[in-house]
């Protein structure tokens, strides 16, 4: 049978529920600007009704717990897009460093190459002029320097990226450890039917940071999240994390090994690490090969032309450029072999006044190198490649940023805190509390009435 006592206990329960709801709202508002925070809602259920004879009477509401509002699918998409964005950014930042070297300036390879041929042409009008000869030598040195500095820009970037690999791997290991440490705690909460809540938020934030470093795939198990790299190398399983290692390979570059010591460098994609490795191992070596081939073939062609003529002393022309014996390292190693301007083989007949061989030297500009292109076209090809690699990385970065903005909107529409909404909730819960308090006051006055019933009858 219903009693004032049971009514009071329902009212007290309501007060507790409203307090709980206010607590959640308060927490949501407090974390409105906390990165990675997932809004929580209080889960209220009807209490089991009380059966009184034929009547079933409600017995209030029960606060079952707090639930974070998540969307795992969007969360996964954000992780993947973050990976793609970081990868593109890593490439973009390297290319932005490389690009100025290949931008038309007073000292780029194209300009210096033109200057060398111009100086040869000037020499053809006055083959005995020592100042014109010196100008050819200086132009040759400037061209060699332009090759040297382009090569050094590329290799310096490569070295910088190499250091980045080590840093990225150490961060990945740290994050894996932290994710693994959270797994048992979350699993324990879940086993008792509770929501992962804040711990889950922390773990999601860590996984997102990890995604920015490399492409990862996450699966949910009873033991928590299992995290592997894109190629399947385990990073986290339950409470255990597996550290990646780094080692210097025979190519002098830092390689990444899994916990078994297998080299997984080339299979790492996405994220800062993936982008860094891609730029270090594919993009820059490709550019270096093109640059070295150009330097090598140009110097070889120029030396051959020089050998067909005679210098000012009537001796057969000797090498103008010194280049390493292999194509690799040609751009870094190219230098002018002669320091005496009279050794420029302008003459075709051994007399100092002849300019006949300058035609052969100038023809290097218009003749195809073994690569099938003229030196100018080969350099233009290199400029095109640098430009398109940079612009591709830029486009990729812009696209992923836009898509990430959209995905974040989507996620925040599910999991984000709306101050307006919370403000409205605040009012609702405040009223609920006030109403429950009113019930308590009412019951209290009823109790008073009940207690004074006898006294009133006696009067």
């Amino acid at each position, binding site marked *: 049978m219903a009693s004032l006592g049971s009514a009071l206990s329902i009212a007290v329960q309501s007060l507790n529920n409203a307090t709980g709801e206010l607590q959640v709202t308060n927490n949501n508002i407090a974390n409105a600007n906390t990165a990675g925070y997932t809004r929580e809602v209080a889960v209220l259920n009807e209490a089991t009704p009380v059966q009184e004879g034929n009547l079933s009477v409600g017995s209030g509401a029960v606060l079952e717990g707090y639930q974070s509002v998540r969307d795992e699918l969007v969360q996964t998409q954000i992780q993947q897009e973050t990976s793609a964005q970081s990868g593109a950014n890593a490439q973009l930042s390297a*290319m932005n460093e490389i*690009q*100025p070297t*290949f*931008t*038309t300036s007073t000292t780029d390879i*194209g*300009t210096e*190459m*033109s*200057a060398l*041929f*111009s100086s040869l*042409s*000037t020499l*053809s*009008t*006055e*083959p*005995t002029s020592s100042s014109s000869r010196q100008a050819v030598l200086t132009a040759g040195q400037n061209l060699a320097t332009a090759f040297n500095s382009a090569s050094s820009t590329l290799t310096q970037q490569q070295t910088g990226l190499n250091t980045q690999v080590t840093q990225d791997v150490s961060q990945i290991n740290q994050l894996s450890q932290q994710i693994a440490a959270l797994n048992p705690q979350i699993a324990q909460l879940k086993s008792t039917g509770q929501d992962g809540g804040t711990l889950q938020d922390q773990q999601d934030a860590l996984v997102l940071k990890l995604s920015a470093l490399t492409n990862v795939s996450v699966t949910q198990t009873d033991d928590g999240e299992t995290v592997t790299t894109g190629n399947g190398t385990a990073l986290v399983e339950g409470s255990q994390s597996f550290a990646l290692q780094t080692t210097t390979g025979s190519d002098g570059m830092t390689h990444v090994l899994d916990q078994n010591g297998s080299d997984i460098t080339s299979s790492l994609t996405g994220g800062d690490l993936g982008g860094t490795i891609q730029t270090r191992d594919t993009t820059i070596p490709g550019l270096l090969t093109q640059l070295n081939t150009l330097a090598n073939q140009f110097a070889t062609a120029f030396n051959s032309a020089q050998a067909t003529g005679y210098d000012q002393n009537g001796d057969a022309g000797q090498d103008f450029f010194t280049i390493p014996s292999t194509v690799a390292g040609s751009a870094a190693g190219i230098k002018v072999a002669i320091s005496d301007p009279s050794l420029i083989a302008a*003459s075709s*007949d051994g*007399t*100092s*006044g*002849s*300019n*006949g061989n300058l*035609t052969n030297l100038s023809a290097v*500009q218009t003749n195809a190198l073994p690569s099938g292109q003229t030196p*100018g*076209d080969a*350099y*233009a*090809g290199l*400029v*095109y*490649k*640098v*430009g*398109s690699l*940079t*612009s591709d990385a*830029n486009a990729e970065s812009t696209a992923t*940023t*836009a898509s990430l*903005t959209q995905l*974040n*909107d989507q996620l*925040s*529409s*599910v999991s*984000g*805190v*709306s*101050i*307006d909404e919370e*403000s*409205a909730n605040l*009012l609702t819960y405040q009223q609920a509390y006030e109403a429950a308090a009113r019930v308590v006051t009412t019951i209290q006055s009823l109790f008073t009435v009940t207690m004074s019933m006898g006294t009133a009858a006696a009067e």
Partner: protein
Amino acid sequence: MRVTNMLPDMQYAIQQSQQNLSTALQQVSTGLRVNKPSDDPSASANMVVSLAASANVDQYTSNVSSVLPQMQTVDSAISSVVTSLNSAVTQGTEGASGTENTADRQEIASQVQSILSSVITQANTSYEGVYVFGGSETSTPPFVAASTTYTSAKGSASSPLSTTTALTAGSVTTISDATTGETMTFKAAAGDTVATLQTAIANAVSAGTLSAGTTATINAGGQLEIGTNSSSDGIVVSSNDAALGSMTAASGTSVANAYAYVGNSSVNTVQVGDSMTVATNLPGNQLFTSGTNVIGSLQNLISALQSGTSAEIGTATTAVSTALNDVSEQRVPLDNTISQLNSQESYLGQEKVTLTTQQTSLVGANLADAATNLSQAELQNSAVMAAAAKVLPETLLQYLQG
């Protein structure tokens, strides 16, 4: 859709609009649409090629400017030679007439002699230190007065040179013959001796390069003596051989009116267009000593005037006249080249304009477009800012408080 926080979207929109603004501003301020290869990789690559073409055009223009005065010098020297030859023909015709006596002819001969020396002066014309009629031997005058005998600096009675004296490998000895107009060049190989040089001279005589009778002998003073054995055949000898020392003409052996050509037949060419090269010199042997032989014909006229008959003077005068025609003919291509150079100069000017236009269209910004883009970007940017300022501070709490 539930909208919770508009700040990230606003930040993104502001950033996008500022990026557009910055791009538009850069295009307007630099006047360039392409500032770095990634702005337009293909235009940047074409730009490299176009800039190289531009640099070539600049260089061709500068080549035309430096070659033209030299060509003009060559032309004016030839023009003087033509004038001289004309006056030699006049003198010869006068000398050939039966009315002139011996003294008159001697007088005319000496006038023709001075014409010859003036022709030699023209033939030794130099432009900025470069002898323009010496082929590629540009550092020394190409026409040198010839002598019958040259002797070496090395060798003495006490320590004579001999046929077995070894020559320095790589050394060069040249004998230029005024009569044949040709030059023998002997480059010593390892193991060569004076005897090898003697054989080479004998071979050159058989081949007709050197006049008959030219020999190299060791004279009483122990020196190497190269001589023609004829008072009318002159030679010029030079050597850089250390064993022989320099070769000098023996005193009193110079041959009157004989000049040997010590230049060569090389022609230097200079590129003044992608497919246009011009010859910048005219080897003196081609112009003055080969074919109808300007110098030879003048020499003959002088000796005919000095000791010949009217008929001989007439023949010699006709030869000078033929040489004159020949020189005038050779001048025609030279004049053509000069006029080509003048028109090439204006063509290159046009080409430069074409390339500059091409470069502007490759990387330049269309200023009208760029300015429009800039004002649009400004407008968009202030709209985004205004929207952000209006939307972001709005919250329910404000209204509840109010």
